[in-house]
């Protein structure tokens, strides 16, 4: 990460916070790349790097108001990613200080279901039905807001509200686990 990347990322984030969805999309994709390479270097057995990426993106989204507009954005992103990484370690009841090599490979993870192949997918089931269908239509089936609204027989506004509440609820759940 050099200074030019930082400037570009900060520019995208500022535009995103001003309401530019395209910039927000590029910002989140760039962040996903950064966090993915961090997570791949740091994860231990039993933790999926992509889970860390997704939890970090979600935390960045619901906590985006904690970024100071005149502060560099990469330290903020990495702080959130580290926080989520430590959370994941804790959830697996292992100290952060344990080295990867120290854990025997016998700690086999149960096989994951193919539909909710990442943790966020698994948390979907805990949502209220309306929120779940909105989040599932957009995050799992990949519909746009408009498509999801037609599909679910809801207004676009209602889908937006349900999506917002659902995403916030998922983020909160991860914070408490």
């Amino acid at each position, binding site marked *: 990460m050099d200074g030019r990347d930082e400037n570009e990322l900060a520019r995208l984030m500022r535009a995103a916070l001003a309401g530019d969805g395209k910039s927000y999309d590029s910002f989140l994709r760039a962040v996903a790349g950064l966090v993915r390479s961090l997570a791949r270097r740091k994860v231990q057995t039993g933790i999926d790097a992509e889970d860390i990426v997704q939890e970090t993106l979600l935390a960045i989204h619901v906590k985006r108001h904690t970024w100071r507009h005149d502060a560099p954005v990469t330290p903020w992103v990495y702080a959130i990613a580290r926080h989520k990484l430590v959370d994941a370690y804790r959830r697996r009841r292992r100290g952060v200080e344990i080295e990867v090599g120290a854990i025997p490979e016998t700690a086999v993870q149960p096989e994951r279901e193919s539909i909710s192949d990442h943790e966020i997918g698994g948390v979907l089931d805990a949502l209220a039905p309306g929120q779940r269908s909105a989040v599932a239509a957009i*995050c799992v089936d990949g519909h746009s807001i408009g498509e999801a609204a037609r599909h679910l027989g809801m207004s676009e506004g209602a889908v937006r509200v349900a999506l917002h509440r659902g*995403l916030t609820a998922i983020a909160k759940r991860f*914070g408490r686990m």
Partner: protein
Amino acid sequence: MDTDKLIRALVADERRQAASISSVWWGAMALAIALAGAVFFAVFGPRPDIAIAAESPRLLFKFVVMITLAASAFGLVRALSRPGEPWRHALPFLAAAPMLALIAVAAELFLVPSNLWSARLLGVNALACLSFISLVGIGPLAVFLLALRHGAPERPALAGAVAGLLAGGIAGAIYAAHCTDDSPLFVATWYTLAVAGLALIGAAAAHRLARW
């Protein structure tokens, strides 16, 4: 869930974002002072001789040390509520209030004959001081915990403890106008205990409430 679809969902969730951390903290501060002031006037009010006592350097010292504590804690807790924000540089300011208290204690020990020390230390009503500062401070602490929850503290317990110091500083400064024990010996002992209690409550509560 596919990361790509998650990103699209996050972009689609373009509802107005939450209030900025900075404005939330200033709002919390105003609300906390209003709450503490309301409890103060509802429950006990200023001491009767406040107008005369206000000129005493000992009473002034109580205000100065408590406001110093609140100010230093305010700067630190705001930094602690943002991820990746440097906060260690704000840590030394936290030593200002204890330093002031130590200097005042030294001066008091120098000015007051040693046979009066224990009477000054115990004061008239130490227990009331402990309970009233906690009573005045608990509302502000609750407000600050909500502000922390709105933020994203990387160290929730530490941030909660500092929020407790902030609430304690506000409560101490307000309670000082009621309390007739003005000796720095009294303040350094009992006010400190009350503030430490709020810091402990803050740390324990934030550890559970300010997770994200």
